[in-house]
């Protein structure tokens, strides 16, 4: 396992359904100030490069990278924006340090989802304009198609998916950052209104606003600056073919390939034994199960049974989304993967508070770019 680059600072702000009191710049500034203080660095003096994650259509501003330097302390410094998942941005920052080009790099991702008045229209804008969009179905049907096929092929049940929702919302009750903690029963999920069969309203993670900033450093600087550097052991990312007509509707192959790349780098052969916990995409309830299987945290078709057994609860054998995941914390658009990674950092530092896991050394974060994509990224960290 390489020990070349570490996370030495994290900062975050928001994680609420609405944040009318601050602009997106002010939200980012709050997260950045905290991250730099946590890392013990002055951004104007010490940070050599900045990577931000943003998608113009969700910001409502073209060439959005022009709008980020001020609030990050990045004016007149190397800055670039990744239009991808938060973990894609994180990996870009990591690679800058790994190559030796930079010693200290900051990465930022945020969501002002509450400012988008037509979110489903923006989602539809990602669909093929010739083949798919003219049908004018709300793009959530894509999750319905996938959930249906996944349940059918693996024998996973809607009840097992509902258990994921109950677990994650329950975990969120113990996470002060989480916006959607709740004590709900399987029946509540099953009886909530159908959005696109078999996906119900409560199978979906509600959107939230928030910003996350992380500071990465090369080994020498990391050891000098931080008492508890969190080491990056493996990264991987992968895009499947996009087509709705002939993608694999059962298996998240993008997740499997992204994870294999990260496992290979980290020297991990049996992930469910060598990892202590995972924070993985749960944009929709079934996605947590499908991703668990793709990430080899269990055998294909077994994820539902593990949830039934309580194995993925905070006190279980292999906790999954102890933070509450997107179902419990809220979906932060492209910042979601970085929110998963933030929880891995806090757990490995022993700073997770009431939902702290005991004796954790290695954790996995996995982010999916959301509908209608087959795009994901994985990061493995250890303390």
């Amino acid at each position, binding site marked *: 396992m390489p020990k070349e680059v570490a996370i030495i600072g994290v900062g975050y702000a928001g994680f609420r359904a609405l*944040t009318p*009191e601050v*602009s997106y710049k002010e939200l980012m*500034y709050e997260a950045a100030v905290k991250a730099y203080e946590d890392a013990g660095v002055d951004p*104007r003096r010490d940070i050599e490069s900045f990577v931000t994650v943003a998608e113009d259509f969700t910001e409502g501003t073209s060439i959005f990278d022009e709008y980020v330097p001020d609030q990050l302390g990045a004016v007149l410094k190397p800055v670039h924006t990744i239009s991808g998942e938060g973990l894609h941005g994180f990996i870009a920052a990591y690679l800058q340090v790994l190559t030796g080009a930079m010693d200290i790099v900051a990465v930022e991702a945020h969501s002002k989802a509450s400012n988008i008045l037509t979110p489903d*229209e923006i989602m539809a804008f990602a669909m093929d304009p*010739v083949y798919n969009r003219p049908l004018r179905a709300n793009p959530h049907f894509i999750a319905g198609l996938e959930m249906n096929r996944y349940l059918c092929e693996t024998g996973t049940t809607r009840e097992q998916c509902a258990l994921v929702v109950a677990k994650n919302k329950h975990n969120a009750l113990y996470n002060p950052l989480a916006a959607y903690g709740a004590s709900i029963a399987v029946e509540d999920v099953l009886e909530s209104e159908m959005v696109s069969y078999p996906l119900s309203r409560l199978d979906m993670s509600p959107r939230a606003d928030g910003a996350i900033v992380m500071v990465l450093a090369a080994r020498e600087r990391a050891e000098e600056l931080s008492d508890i550097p969190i080491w990056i052991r493996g990264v991987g990312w992968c895009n499947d073919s996009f087509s709705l007509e002939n993608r694999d509707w059962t298996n998240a192959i993008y997740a499997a390939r992204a994870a294999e790349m990260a496992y290979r780098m980290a020297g991990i052969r049996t992930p469910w034994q060598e990892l202590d916990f995972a924070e993985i995409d749960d944009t929709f309830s079934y996605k947590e199960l499908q991703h668990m299987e793709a990430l080899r945290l269990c055998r294909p078709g077994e994820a539902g049974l593990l949830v039934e057994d309580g194995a993925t609860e905070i006190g279980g054998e292999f906790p999954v989304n102890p933070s509450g995941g997107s179902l419990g914390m809220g979906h932060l658009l492209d910042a979601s993967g970085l929110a998963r990674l933030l929880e891995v950092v806090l757990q490995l530092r022993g700073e997770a508070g009431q939902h702290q896991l005991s004796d954790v050394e290695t954790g996995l974060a996995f982010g999916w770019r959301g509908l209608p994509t087959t795009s994901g990224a994985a990061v493995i960290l250890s303390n």
Partner: protein
Amino acid sequence: MTAKIKEFPGVGLRESDFTERKVLFTEWKPDARYAWDAGVAIGRYLAELKEGRIIGVRCHHCRRTVVPPRIFCEWCFRPMDEWVYLEDHGVVNTFSICYVQWDMERLEEPLIPAVIEIAGASKGVGILHLLGEVDPREVKIGMKVKAVWKPAAERIGAITDIRYFKPIN
């Protein structure tokens, strides 16, 4: 080479070829709507514009006074120290005379966008607005200009609460 060709082969496309769908194509009209939270700095700026005032902020570290306001100094990366009311007049830093509409049609009356260094703000700091009540041929860099406000009842807390800036002697 094309100069040698007197007559091009084929038939040109006409609008009717599209309307009668002889040419196949797909259209999509995006419905992308947003409502940005103004937050602390922009929120106060807009509220002050509604009152007919321009407000900026000052950083005690680099001693700059900037407008529009922000809660942090982008140079020093620290919180701004105080709100400062500024004058509603200033000096033209740079301007252009824009003769085209959005579809590149010619404008009868050109628009004159300008960066106006607001009195009370630091050198080189200004706001972007339009100039009015001025012959485009008379506009000069360094010219003194003053805000022409909408009547109080018409102001809504927007940059357009100032109609334009006009020259003063």
